């Protein structure tokens, strides 16, 4: 008799939360309100019922009722505000499982445990969580996100970031888990001041938004001065909805300045290179331009300026004259001048290549010995490294040396990251050259992961990526195969 309204209310609550996750408009507040309302009703109902049962001395039933009625509603709050701060990973795991969000409750439990571990790292906790993760085959988003949190618990934020982001490529979707990934990424980006990352994620609605994410997205949009930025009042509302208000009010205030100045100016990077005074000779000018990279972020323009400065300096008569005279005075061996010029060209090209690689810049359009050398270095260096990495991955598999699924995934995302970095810097031309090799290894590995390892989600993600790349470079054959592979049905835990 009681069961029906309870099930109905739980469903309704779930529905409201799910609806909220899909939204980033005023509906967000509406659904939040609905969810809160239902939660209150449920809470009142449950407390009355429990009180009644206690009164009837049926206290064991009362306890069961608490579990049944209240956990789905207060469970996640308990996890977030009590168990995680305590670092109680085991309890978080079981409670997370017990509040039964969706078809695969363990997924949330696993991430809750990893989260607790991330907040209060305990030596044994990592192994405990990893063991539970490795038992879950095939791999899905929860396992990847849990691994990311474990990396974060070790203070390795870079790895955590990469892994979190990689979860987006997987077809298995646990919204409960995904929204946590989104929140972690938003908090991490806010800490680094990388507001544009948050805005971009929000724009693409990459992750379901928790109230905290939603607030940070608002801050980001306002700081960047984007058109979709929330009003002052709306930001206040988002702030009110989100937890940890004590720590976020500073962010809110910074994003809602009372004066008329826009916070957008804050973000703008100073990208100008100190222009060397024009009266200097070519060699000092080249060295000065080179040195400027240590104080300001390199850009394609400044790289081009430096390359041209070097080409001018090394062909300059004054440089040759100085070298010749000094070589004579120092009694340097015959041919020292030519050797010196060659050596300097090599050193300079090396350093510029490193700078360009670090900033993911392409080769500047400049034709001179240094310009050409740099272009060749960058292109081959990047392609060689990519090919070596992909080859090694496949060789290892071929040699029968298999890693745990999560490690295979990490290898793939590392390679993919390198690939993306290389093509971002090298442009469409390099992308076309890099694709065939990545493609042949990638398809091979995707097939192996699917057929032999039953890692459907991972395999699908690789195929999907390859298809996107094939579309970008217009490789008809790869596109055809890619479509066929991606159209395969991907079994996940959410099917059951």
């Amino acid at each position, binding site marked *: 008799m009681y069961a029906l309204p309870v099930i109905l209310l739980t469903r309704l609550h779930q529905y409201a939360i799910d609806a909220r996750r899909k939204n980033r408009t005023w509906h967000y507040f509406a659904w939040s309100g609905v969810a809160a309302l239902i939660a209150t009703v449920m809470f009142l109902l449950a407390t009355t019922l429990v009180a009644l049962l206690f009164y009837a001395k049926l206290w064991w039933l009362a306890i069961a009722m608490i579990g049944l009625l209240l956990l789905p509603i207060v469970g996640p709050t308990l996890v977030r505000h009590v168990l995680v701060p305590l670092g109680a990973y085991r309890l978080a795991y079981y409670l997370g499982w017990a509040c039964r969000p969706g078809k695969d409750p363990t997924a949330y439990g696993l991430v809750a445990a990893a989260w607790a571990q991330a907040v209060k790292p305990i030596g044994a906790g990592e192994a405990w969580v990893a063991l539970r993760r490795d038992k879950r085959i095939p791999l899905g988003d929860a396992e990847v996100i849990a691994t990311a949190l*474990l*990396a974060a618990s*070790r*203070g*390795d934020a*870079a*790895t955590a970031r990469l892994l979190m982001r990689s979860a987006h490529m997987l077809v298995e979707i646990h919204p409960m888990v995904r929204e946590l990934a989104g929140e972690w990424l938003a908090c991490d980006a806010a800490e680094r001041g990388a507001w544009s990352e948050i805005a971009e994620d929000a724009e693409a609605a990459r992750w379901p938004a928790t109230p905290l994410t939603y607030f940070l997205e608002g801050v980001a949009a306002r700081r960047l001065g984007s058109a979709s930025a929330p009003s002052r009042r709306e930001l206040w509302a988002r702030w009110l909805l989100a937890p940890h208000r004590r720590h976020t009010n500073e962010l809110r205030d910074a994003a809602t300045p009372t004066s008329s100045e826009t916070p957008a100016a804050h973000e703008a990077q100073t990208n100008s290179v100190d222009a060397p005074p024009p009266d200097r000779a070519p060699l000092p000018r080249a060295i000065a331009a080179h040195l400027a990279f240590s104080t300001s972020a390199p850009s394609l323009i400044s790289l081009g300026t430096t390359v041209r400065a070097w080409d001018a300096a090394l062909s300059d008569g004054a440089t040759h004259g100085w070298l010749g005279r000094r070589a004579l005075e120092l009694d340097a*061996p*015959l*041919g020292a001048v030519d050797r010196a010029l060659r050596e300097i060209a090599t050193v300079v090209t090396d350093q510029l290549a490193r700078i360009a690689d670090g900033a993911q810049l392409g080769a500047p359009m400049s034709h001179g010995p240094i310009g050409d050398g740099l272009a*060749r270095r960058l*292109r*081959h260096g990047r*392609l*060689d*490294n990519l090919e*070596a*990495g992909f*080859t*090694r*991955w*496949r*060789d*290892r598999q*071929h*040699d029968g*040396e298999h*890693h*745990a699924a*999560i*490690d295979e995934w*990490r*290898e793939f*995302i*590392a*390679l993919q*990251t*390198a690939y993306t970095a290389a093509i971002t810097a090298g442009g469409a031309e390099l992308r*076309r*050259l890099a694709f*065939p*090799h990545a493609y042949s290894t990638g398809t091979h590995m995707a*097939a192996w992961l699917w057929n032999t390892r039953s890692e459907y989600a991972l395999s699908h993600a690789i195929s999907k990526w390859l298809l996107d790349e094939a579309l970008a470079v*217009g*490789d*008809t*054959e790869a596109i055809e195969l890619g479509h066929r592979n991606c159209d395969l049905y991907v079994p996940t835990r959410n099917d059951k």
Partner: protein
Amino acid sequence: MDTPLYVGIDLGTTNSAAAVFDGERVSVIRNAQGATVTPSVVRIDKQGRITVGTRARRFLEQDSANTAAEFKRLMGTGKAIEFPANSSAKKPEELSAEVLKALRQDITDQLGVQIERAVISVPALFELPQSAATSEAARLAGFSRVELLQEPIASALAAGWRADDDGGGTWLVFDLGGGTFDASLLETRDGLLRVVGHDGDNFLGGRDFDWTITEHLASQLSVVPRRNNPEHAAALRALRLAAEDAKIELSRGDRAQVTLAQPLSIDGQDVDVDLELTRATVERLCTPLVDRALDVCLRLLSGNGLGPGRLAKLVLVGGPTVMPMVRQRVAARLESTIAEGHDPMTLVAQGAALYAATASLDGRAASVAVPAGRQVWLQYPAVSADLTPHVVGKFVGDDPPAKIKLVRNDGAWSSTEATVGPDGTFLTTVTLLPRRASTFEIEARAKGGELVAVTPSQLTIVQGLTIGDPPLSRTLGVALANGHVQVYLERGAPLPARRTFTHHTIETVAKGSSDSVLRIPIVQGELSQAELCRLVGTLDIGGDVVKDTVPTGSAVEVTIELDRGGRLSARALIPAIGQVFEHVAHLLVPDASPEVLDAAIRDLRRQLMDLRSDAFRHQLGHVIEKLDRIEARLSEAERDIDAAHGGDADAAQRARRALLDVDATMAEADLSRKWPELDQNARHVAISASSTVGEHGTDAERALLQEVLSAMEKARREKDAAELERQMRLASRLSRAAFHRTSEAWEYYFEDAASEISKMKDLPKAQQLVTEGKAARAAGNTPELRRVVNALWQLLPEDSEARKKGFDSGVR
């Protein structure tokens, strides 16, 4: 304070010597027999008694099985030398340790002090394992600390020390020893000695003289013994010893008699030996060998932009340079005069002793002095070319004296009063007496002006030639996955040295998986291709020790450190997981068994044939020339391998080296050959892609191909092989995609795959597929045929790409 004692030891292949320097004079140590050199020969008899030196050398003939010589050449190989009488085996470093012990005892006998620290000279081209083995020998001999110094630097230091003219200029040290030849170009300027260049032949020396003479003598016997026959080894050994004695005799006399007390037994026959040898004969036989050394010298000179006749000084070192013929020929061909007055047999040891002073390596055990007064730490050069060097010091403890002054012992000079800082530090300058030792008393005064007693109370500085830090003899680096070498320490880098570089991994090290290992190979050599360098150690990071999985592309900071004793250490830090790995597996000089060498030479011969026919086909004149030179070296190596079969371990090592060299030259030739082949391939690919894509390609593909073709043209013009290969791959893909649109393509692939059915993994399934395929072909069902072909391909085994070139390196 009594005078310091700096000890230098020349641990030679044939002879060893020791010398001491007391700050004023260098003296050579004499052994119990009164000789300045001790043969590097060790004998172990049945009772396990060990004899070293001249007394052991006598047994080389009688009891050769239990008497070891020339073990220096096997240092670092880990090869044990058997002593059957005592049924024991000793490693080369243990035998060297016996020689060192004997020399150490001689020093104690002569000077009455126990020596703990010394400088030991090593050949200029010693590799790290060999140097490390030398340090180990010293440790076994009871030395607590040694530093190693290259022999030519020692010779130059000794020769330059006594030279009264400090004119400077370039000089050549010509060191022809028992088995190695070293030519070093040095320069002195302002009292500083610097190595300008070095060359040499690790396998040229007095013993080669001996062998040519021995062969000459053998050819005159009634039965001729052969080197590749192990049964003739004993006879040849006896003959060789006699030949050596005769050779040494002929350095003074004009003719010598080669007579053996007992007849040789060859092939069961007794052969009497009673031959006469003239100086002229020996000179005729040995001239080609001397010329070989001279060729090396001329190459070295021209490599440094010097012609003959431009040398300020020419120093001859080593036993064979005693021969008048050698001296005349060297002086004539290098058009320089030989510096006289140096003992070629002990010059190296003298230089090592002088260097010990530079390195402040007092040979006596550090005595625990009872501190009387204030203790002060001093830093100053024990030997200085500079007449006015700095002295830096620091008082231990609080409340240091206020002023300090140094007074020279001869009373003719004293420093200005230097102020001592509140932290006890001070800095002052002293003035030295030229070309001798100056001792200074330390006068410290407290604030009030009263004298404060300090320990030590004086310091001594010798003014003379210095060399700074000993240089690294061979470039050291890390092999990368692409087969190149990242140089860490360049040849000539001052030791000790340390360098760090950041690499990136190219494979994942999975936590907990012992299979997955990240390998960082450390190599030594002058070539930029890793496979042509020597692997001297590896630093392995296994999945079983990492705290977390280290994915591809992770940064690894590798630090390599090398001390003056040839000890290498390396450290890798992986910042992502915050872990440091330090365990370096040190490698030995690879063993050269004759069988391995046989296999290697067969392999090289085959490669040579391939290259040759290719070179002829493409008419590459310069490549053919190079190959001819390789051919000559291979024949030489073959002779050595022959001798190796006869039990000559040294010849085996020489052959191994020669084969390595050949390998390097061959790789070069291979590169210059590859281009025409690639160029031709590129042309074919371009033609076939144009026609296929033109016929079956889409518009987009045709446009793309046009771009690729022009990129290929550009790469061909610039001779950029890597670029050409990549563009070719693109062209092939385009052409394949177009080809796949035709039905013939799949029929063709089907035929092809069906013909390889025997190699397939799952035969019944393959047969089933072939049947299906045939049906599809008959029905003209291309999509179905395509499915079958794809399924068949899955069943084919595939090749894993070879990656041995970079010693399996896991970093880039």
